């Protein structure tokens, strides 16, 4: 009996250990299932956005063609040079990269045409099927992908009406491998094995990030049959022995659909390895494993969610910020390349200056993105705090901003001979970023003031503007990375959304605090503190410094 009693604590311990382990396992497996579902849902929602985009592009193209035939006076006489010129002007003018246009009679016979690219497919091409069906129903139509001179081609058609009666058809052709949708899809990459596809009503690939696929048939019949039934969704299938996942959505127009594919191993990889962790951990020390597993899973899910969010925000915000300087650099280089012989020395200097300045700006932006990423990843940045004189530092940085914008006079008020313990570069960066922000969000101009207030233990530095201001809700998130207050039109203010997040990190790592005070339509004041130190100057030097 005594022997049995001696084992009771052990048995209870093992029981507890097992219970904890089971809880850990259940938590882990439920977290895995949730994570799997979130990924699938995310992919389907991305897919719907892609579908919407295609829909709008196609609608825009059709509307544009419709406007052309409605607005342009066309004689519809066979071979009329005025009609040819009108078609040529239309084909060349849009951003939709049309390469050919043709006017045909209702029976399909040619009236007039203009082409800049490969020949157009003959009217017997079965690809015209969906287009014909739409036209018979009295609607504008889009063809399947047709191959002409080895080039994948798509045709769009709208009826040409004369006094409300359809007299002819205008057909616009564009290269399926060189249209804006193709360019867009080429930018989409899902891991190493992912593809973003746009397919037509019979399953031919119109656009893909792998250009070689354009014009070929999409293989997964399960996906095609679900699309034919108008379904949006996510499915797993096997392609040549490889397990694949696909998310898909019909684009709601012309029978086109968007599909993204990826190997299942890559798509689920990090999640499925969770099971392996569990098995290994259980085989080892149960208590530690169960607890560790729970923590590990939680951390992984959080990290995964954060990484996804981070990636999305980073892409969205930085793309435009990078595009503008690149456009200027490219434009200046092209202009110089074409016209340097006829340009004056001043003009050449001006364009070289643009390239130089914009490259500097680009490097600065990339450095800021990297710094933001390092800070967000929790990596230490090395600051070298040293006694720094406040007025001198602020004077140096504000003077850099004096010429940035003539509409934003920068005022400075700070006491003399007040010293703080701060990294001078970090202090420069903090005030510089706050000034940049103040100018950017004061689109109508106005004074920007920088002031320092001497306190017992800290010095408080303020940067104020009379700009657009922020609502209390916006102020709550203003220091979050990639948050850009939604002040009016989204295309109004540029920016990556990292400046204030970097400012907060730098202030905190310098031992201070930061706060914001803002009223919409009135302006914003950012205040931050820096630890104060005694003046390192001897009294005599101080006197001398003060006299200077």
């Amino acid at each position, binding site marked *: 009996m005594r022997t049995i009693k001696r084992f009771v604590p052990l048995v209870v311990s093992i029981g507890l250990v097992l219970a904890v382990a089971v809880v850990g396992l259940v938590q882990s497996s439920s977290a895995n299932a949730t994570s799997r579902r979130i990924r699938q849902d995310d992919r389907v929602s991305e897919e719907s956005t892609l579908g919407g985009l295609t829909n709008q592009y196609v609608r825009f193209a059709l509307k544009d063609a419709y406007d052309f035939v409605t607005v342009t006076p066309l004689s519809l006489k066979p071979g009329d040079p005025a009609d040819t010129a009108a078609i040529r*002007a239309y084909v060349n003018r*849009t951003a939709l990269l049309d390469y050919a246009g043709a006017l045909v009679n209702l029976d399909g016979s040619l009236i007039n045409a203009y082409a800049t690219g490969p020949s157009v497919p003959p009217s017997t091409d079965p690809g015209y099927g969906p287009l014909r069906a739409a036209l018979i129903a009295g609607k504008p139509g889009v063809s399947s992908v047709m191959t002409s001179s080895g080039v994948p081609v798509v045709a769009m058609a709208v009826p040409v009406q004369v006094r409300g009666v359809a007299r002819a058809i205008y057909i616009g052709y564009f290269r399926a491998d060189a249209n804006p949708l193709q360019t*867009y899809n080429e930018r989409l990459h899902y891991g190493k094995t992912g593809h973003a596809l746009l397919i037509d009503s019979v399953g031919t690939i119109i656009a893909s990030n792998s250009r070689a696929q354009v014009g070929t048939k999409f293989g997964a019949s399960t996906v095609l049959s679900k699309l034919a039934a108008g379904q949006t969704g996510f499915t797993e299938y096997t392609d040549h022995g490889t397990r694949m996942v696909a998310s898909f959505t019909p684009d709601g127009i012309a029978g086109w659909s968007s599909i993204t594919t990826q190997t299942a191993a890559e798509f689920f990889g990090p999640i499925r390895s969770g099971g392996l962790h569990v098995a290994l951990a259980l085989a080892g020390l149960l208590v530690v494993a169960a607890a560790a597993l729970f923590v590990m899973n939680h951390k992984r899910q959080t990290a995964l969610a954060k990484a996804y969010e981070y990636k999305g925000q980073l892409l969205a915000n930085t793309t435009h910020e990078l595009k503008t300087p690149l*456009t200027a650099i490219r434009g200046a280089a092209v202009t110089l390349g*074409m016209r340097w012989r006829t340009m004056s020395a001043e003009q050449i200097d*001006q364009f070289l200056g643009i390239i130089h300045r*914009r490259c500097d700006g680009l490097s600065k932006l990339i450095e800021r993105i990297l710094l933001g990423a390092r800070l967000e990843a929790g990596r230490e940045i090395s600051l070298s705090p040293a006694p720094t004189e406040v007025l001198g530092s602020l004077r140096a940085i504000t003077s850099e901003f004096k010429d940035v914008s003539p509409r934003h006079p920068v005022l400075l008020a700070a006491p003399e001979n007040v010293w703080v313990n701060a990294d001078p570069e970090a202090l420069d960066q903090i005030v510089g970023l706050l000034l940049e922000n103040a100018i950017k969000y004061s689109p109508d101009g106005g004074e920007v003031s920088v002031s320092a207030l001497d306190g017992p233990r800290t010095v408080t530095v303020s940067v104020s503007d009379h700009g657009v201001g922020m609502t209390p809700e916006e102020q709550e998130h203003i220091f979050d990375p990639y948050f850009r207050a939604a002040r009016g039109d989204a295309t109004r203010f540029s920016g990556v959304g990292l400046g204030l997040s970097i400012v907060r990190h730098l202030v905190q790592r310098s031992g201070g605090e930061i706060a914001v005070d803002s009223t919409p339509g009135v302006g914003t004041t950012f205040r931050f503190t820096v630890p104060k130190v005694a003046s390192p100057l001897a009294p005599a030097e101080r006197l001398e410094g003060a006299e200077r």
Partner: protein
Amino acid sequence: MSQVLLLEDDDDLAAITDALVTGAGYDVVRASTVEDAIKRCESAIPMLALVDLQLPTRSGWDFVEEATRWPEMRVVVYTVHNDEPETVARAARLNVDALVGKSSDPMHIVDVIRSFATN
């Protein structure tokens, strides 16, 4: 000489576009705000307006809406936001004559202007 109104607040981009369009034989009038662009059109209606969207006080869309006052003037939106669904949809809704990406080949904009001039 056909006049092209260039509504662009980025001095560098304005200088580049100005040089390319002037080099192609057009007379370029620059404006950096919507208000300025409206004043220019009120004094002489250009053949075509090249409109950037991201401007300091009012968005370029405000000018596009205002431009219906001058139906003979072609309106081309010239922006880095050209591939965003909202931009495409709004351009279609406001009947702009063309939506051209700034990051495409810089000479493309000259081709677009030429095609309108010959039309």
